[in-house]
């Protein structure tokens, strides 16, 4: 690496020279994202690990329901160069499955379990990705999928408080809140001379 080269340029050269990158996105001088094919993820991650990005900061997923795809995001971190690298890859939503990166980053163990629990993505290679981690005895589709309706689930499962009295404005007086809002808008009008 020459001194004239910035950290993000160094990373871009490193990855793009060896792999076919579908899309490169430089988020800022400290963050860069590569969208790659599913087959390349593991070799890119091992390349990055040998180049100094020794820590897996985070692994999670995004549900792109209109494209019928999940996007798995690996964020790796270097303690010497201040660049976070995101490796993103798209999976088919119906049979979402990607091999575990456990041999490369052992810290992915719990992130993969979490991603499986909240999105239903399978991680073969991780011995206990199917065990429950955060949700206990979950009985519906994974909750962070976009087609899951949390309100419906909550109404079905947890009852709401029933109030005996109906707190409505019965005598037709202007409520305090409305009066306050009117006062504020009047004050605004005075301040701006009637203009918006």
């Amino acid at each position, binding site marked *: 690496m020459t001194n004239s080269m910035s950290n993000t340029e160094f990373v871009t050269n490193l990855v793009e020279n060896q792999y076919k990158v579908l899309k490169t996105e430089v988020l800022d001088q400290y963050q860069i994202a590569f969208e790659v094919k599913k087959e390349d993820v593991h070799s890119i991650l091992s390349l990055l690990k040998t180049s100094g990005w020794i820590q897996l900061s985070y692994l999670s997923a995004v549900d792109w329901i209109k494209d019928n795809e999940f996007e798995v995001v690996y964020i790796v971190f270097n303690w010497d160069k201040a660049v976070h690298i995101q490796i993103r890859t798209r999976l088919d939503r119906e049979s979402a499955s990607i091999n575990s990166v456990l041999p490369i980053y052992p810290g992915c163990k719990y992130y993969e379990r979490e991603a499986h629990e909240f999105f239903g993505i399978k991680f073969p290679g991780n011995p206990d990705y199917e065990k429950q981690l955060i949700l*206990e005895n979950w009985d519906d589709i994974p*909750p962070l999928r976009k087609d899951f309706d949390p309100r419906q689930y909550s109404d079905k499962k947890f009852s709401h408080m029933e109030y005996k009295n109906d707190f409505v404005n019965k005598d037709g007086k202007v409520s305090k809140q409305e009066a306050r809002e009117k006062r504020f808008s009047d004050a605004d009008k005075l301040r701006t001379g009637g203009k918006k």
Partner: protein
Amino acid sequence: MLSTKFSPMSKEEVDRKWWEIGDFFRRNSLWMLMYCTGCCAIELPPAMTSAYDMERLGMGPMATPRQADVLLVTGYLSLKTLRRLIYTYEQMSEPKYVVGFGSCTINGGIYHDSHAVINQLNKYVPVDVFVAGCMPNTESVMNGFIDLMDLIKNKKANGWKDYHERNDWYKANQKAALGEVKIHDEFHE
């Protein structure tokens, strides 16, 4: 002629007297168990330290459920924490009281449509005092504790008796929400 100085009391009367004496000492020396998984817990540091000085009411923190009188539930409870809360509540020695903080324990608060958070705490454990607000300010927290003391004085803090009497109802609610109350923890099995 019967002595006017001593008239024998029935057993119920004697019990009631002893409970009144016990309640007097209990309400002036409440030990709290703080189940601080919600954000309302941030109201406890000013309430306990020199700003509002909870100790002038005779309240102090206790580390274990078996030695505590009051269970403070500060805010929202997910299903996972509710399971632990029920364990904790059932471990406490009687009489025991529960104070629910914030609107989350009353009707779900801002988490009313969440898949993970329960809406009504008093369906699962009996709650004696609710402190409303999101979050309640420290004055209302202190006021809630004084309310609890008044309830104990007036023999209205009967949540723990209710838990005995309507145990089936509470257990059915717990089962409906949790499926199974028993904790399966991979790190301890």
